[in-house]
């Protein structure tokens, strides 16, 4: 649920990430199922999470001394919208209405259609809100407990979570995430995935969660760091400033008529 942007802006390479929602739940298990159940219970209860139909996050990303405000919406029907503000200008980063999607081209600052493969993968993610763990079996997802590991100095349960198939350069591949659940409190503190495309293909990316806090009885990580495993430790952190749930949808967010004229 993290979108990573990497664009070249003139001489300067701006890399930042907009964190999605980590309503991601993980399970923890003695068995994988028990772990997930305990996790969902600890972060507010599966039945309460199931009532979450939308989410609005105001956050910020710090890049080289700049604080970039970020706004993200996600909806139970799969729609999502993210924007950021730079030099006083608010720009839509990515918007997806469940069928169609657009992304900002940083050079022209115009919205361009998301490439077919990424769009297809977004569509396949539609059922993951507010958590891929809710009813995961019905979605055809699989969960497997691997050997325990220590990450961030913490003894963790390690779960392999396959959330269906995704397209990668035309090929159907498993969408695999490795979740590390803190054994003490059953919340995920790290997710690892193997980067599938680009020059980093094959390397492992880590998403590190902390600063969990409560919003209307539900727990969210308020700090999410994206980094390369075995890298120099210099990742990008997104800090949530405000999380709201069950917010109204602003229809204009998904009005693509202006983009289509581009």
């Amino acid at each position: 649920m993290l979108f990573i942007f990497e664009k070249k802006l003139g001489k300067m390479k701006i890399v930042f990430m907009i964190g999605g929602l980590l309503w991601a739940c993980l399970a923890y298990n003695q068995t994988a199922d028990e772990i997930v159940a305990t996790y969902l219970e600890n972060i507010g209860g599966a039945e309460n999470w199931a009532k979450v139909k939308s989410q609005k996050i105001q956050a910020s990303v710090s890049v080289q001394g700049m604080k970039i405000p970020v706004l993200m919406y996600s909806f139970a029907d799969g729609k999502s919208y993210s924007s950021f503000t730079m030099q006083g200008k608010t720009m839509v980063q990515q918007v997806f209405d469940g069928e169609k999607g657009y992304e900002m081209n940083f050079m022209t600052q115009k919205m361009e259609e998301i490439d077919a493969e990424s769009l297809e993968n977004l569509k396949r993610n539609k059922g993951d809100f507010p958590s891929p763990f809710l009813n995961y079996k019905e979605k055809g997802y699989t969960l497997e407990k691997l050997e325990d590991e220590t990450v961030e100095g913490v003894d963790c349960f390690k779960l392999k979570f396959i959330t269906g198939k995704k397209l990668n350069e035309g090929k159907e591949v498993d969408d695999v995430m490795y979740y590390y659940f803190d054994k003490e409190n059953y919340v995920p503190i790290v997710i690892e995935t193997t980067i599938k495309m680009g020059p980093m293909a094959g390397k492992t990316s880590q998403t590190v969660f902390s600063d969990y806090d409560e919003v209307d009885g539900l727990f969210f990580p308020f700090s999410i760091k994206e980094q390369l495993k075995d890298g120099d430790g210099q990742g990008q952190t997104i800090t949530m400033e405000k999380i709201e749930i069950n917010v109204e949808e602003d229809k204009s967010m998904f009005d693509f008529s202006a983009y289509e004229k581009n």
Partner: protein
Amino acid sequence: MKKLLILLGVFSLSGAFTQNFLKTLSAQELFGSMEARHIGPALMSGRVSDIEGHPSDKLTVYIGTAGGGVWKSTDGGVLFTPIFDKYCQSIGTVKVDPNDPDRVVWVGTGETWTRNSTSIGDGIYKSEDGGANWKKMGLEKSERISNILINPENSQEIFVGVLGALWGDSEERGVYHSSNGGQTWEKIFYIDEKTGCSDLIVDPNDFNTMYASFWEFRRTAWSFNSGGSNSALYKTADGGKTWKKIHNGFPEGKLGRIGVALAPLDPKVIYAVVESEKDEDKGLYRSEDAGNSWKHLNNDFDLTVRPFYFSRIVVDPKDANVIAKAGLSGAISKDGGKTFVGLGFMHSDIHDIWFDIEDSDKMLVATDGGLYRSLNKCVTMERVENLPLSQYYHISMDNEEPYNIYGGLQDNGSWIGPSSSPAGIEARDWLSVGMGDGFRVFPHPTNSNIVYSEMQGAENVWRFDQKSRQLKIVKPYPESIDQKLRFNWNAALSTSIHYPDRLYLGSQFVHVSDDMGENWRIISPDLTTNDPNKLNQENSGGLSKDNSGAENHCTIFTIAESPLNKDVIWVGTDDGNIQLSKDGGKNWENVTAAFSGKLAPKNTWVYHIEADKFNEGTAWAVLDGHTQNDSHPYLIKTTDFGKSWKLMVDSTVIGFTRSFEQDNVNEKLIFLGTELGLYVSINGGENWIKFENNMPSVAIHYMEMHPKKHDLVMGTHGRGIILLDDLSPIRKLLTEDTKTDGFKEELTFIPTPVYFMSDESSFGNTSTETQFVGSNPSDNAKIIYFLKKRHTFGKMNLEIRDLNDKLITTIGAEKKKGLNIVEWNYSMISPKIAQGKTLDFGGFISPRVEAGKYKVIITKGKKEYTTEIEIAYPENSVFSLEDRKIQYATTMEIYNLTEDLAYLVHQIDFYLKLAENYKENNKYKKEVLPMVERLNGLKKTLVITSGDNYVGAAEPQLREKISDLMSSVSGYFGKPGKNQLENLKGLKKAYEEAESTYKSILNKEIAKFTGFRLKDNPEAKLEQLQSKTDFLKK
């Protein structure tokens, strides 16, 4: 809320910690954010032992390496990523499960190319997710796995060929079978404890038909034998139940190693390369009837050369008559083996060859110098440039800034490379300073232009002056015509701590030169066992004579001067002796009896001796028993000049041992390098932990701590040079542990030194996307703290403030249990910049702060932790303090001008936005339009209001001009030029004029507008312009 309390309850600290809290931590906790740094080099790469493709995806390729683990490519062999770092790095074979090729991969550890320096495997592994995670599946004592076969219709059925132990007898050899996916194994075919399965292949159309070659072989530290009456080629047609020898047409007598392959297009066609007694019947045999009969086709050099190293033959999947053979240069036949041509020009010593499944003109070749690609059937070769697999035997360092690392490589000469280089350490940064196999390389201790290097068996010892490019061979010669000097393959060359011009070199004697190698004298008797049974190297090799010098034995292997006393010299030999001189070599005392046969078996190789840095009578010796078939780790210590010794390793340490280093400051902080990675003890060897932060389980042949930088530099045999930068935080941590009686606080800051802001610049590097570039050490300031528990719930953030409490910047805090390091690049928050149509690059500039002290405030939950860090300008900088002050003041002037302009534009935009509501209103149109016009007119001169961020860019306006100046002034470290200062004056003037224009609009048009706005709508007064202070709040 109840849940919250439960969750927080988890965080209450459990019990009191006693002193030496750190002793209880894992290495991951103790070292926390400290990660190993890999610098390669990759330009000469290292030995690749096996290539495995994917049965249906031509772009997925795995390679197994001799000492650098398993690497995977998903782009057909352009870029590779290591996927096996946690495990044994010596690889025999990689196999993709044909039933589930995207997910299931098997690795058999233990290289099967049995040269003297080869390592040892520890079993078979399986991944079910394409290499992301691995599980050991047994065969722990197999040592060398040659092949894995998986039934293409049933993943549960697996056959494994085990070559087995090289250095001794072992019953774990032969062909193994599993019918339950590797849960259990049954040995189904076994010859004897000396003969292992060197090749195992299967008929692709019939999984019951397999061919297995068996090889009788043995290595000792002083000899090698290939061949015997038990070497043979077998066939089974019933899935391994029965095997029969298929030698019809093979040479008579003893056989050696046999490589075998069949043609996938026509599996009745089988090729075997056979090592035999007579030269005339060695080489290639072909069968056209599935092994019933054989015909000898060829005994060309590359078909017969060094079978222990090159017995691999591969058939083109698209053509049964195209076969490629590994060898010194490798060879390929296109006529079914009648004639061969050499493979294209590449590094010598070819071990495996792979054909693309769809287009067999595309090939990959594994060599001692890495992996090569070819698009034209190995006519032209191109090296893969991102495989840092270099196999170091030894490293040393100089004291330059940045310091350089010297060392020699298996089959890849001797090299010097920097510990850091602008924009990363590239291939072009490495300088060749030796030929052949490289071993010990040293700079002259006081003049690093002078470099000493050697090749195998000290056949040459070179002295190279880098400045004048003078190269001289300075090896010692026998003192009489009858004297025979015995040098190890990896001969003990060393400079001296106490005499800059001195060199030591070990044969069976200690040789000393006091004039940089011009003249030598012998200062010892034969210090080895001089055992005549171990001195018959010319008869070594077995069926194929192999006297390369690799088996030279009864030689001195390590020479160590005490740093505390120039007359104390320790010597260790490959045949197990430790000898000591306390008078600079006049007299020698053999102290071997005090440990030999007690703490380690007799004659265990003394691999390294380290004279203690703190106590004259203390020394540490690392013993390596693997050449006696003994993989136990041995680190022994004496505190009484060798009279008594104590074993200093516990059961945590795994893998035989080769290297040791003691911290320069804390005598209890010690490091042990084993064949399977790095171990650390913080209490002088009482207990050990394995360091795994970005550190593969690679063999560490030598390590040394830099005296000034406190970096631990490791020469690994398979992953190049790996550094653990600046260990001073660990020392401080150990001190704090004692001082705080085991860390009473949840968060404890670790004191840091003054940090020097680098003032170097560069235009980046010249490497391409496909080349390996080693990372540089960080020169950022570091905020270091120890967390007793990982921070997971509630807020935690980190701010830097100046001593007046002004916020400088915020940085994401690290939250691990253990040691946390947060880096600060000395920059402040970037200025708020005027909003325009496009983004302004100047708006991304975050100027550097001034030297001085800064406050660090970490807020964790409700608690605040504060410390100070100090930053300074580099010593010996080209910039004066006065210049820096002018630079900083000017930068801040531009910074403030940027923000002044931002606020001015903000005000303009505020009124323009309000005017939107009135523009179309006929009642006010006439009044509002002139204001809008004047404001827009002004704004156009201040910021860009059209175009895009690329080539559609509009003419730069005041904002862009200010940021252009900001970029050049703040990016430099010295004072700005006159031209720049004048430019600033002009910009300030332009700003003042704009401000005054705005004021006139404010007093006239805006005042009018505000007047009727209030009149028209009393609510309008609520729309207040933000104050400048609020606007600029960060």
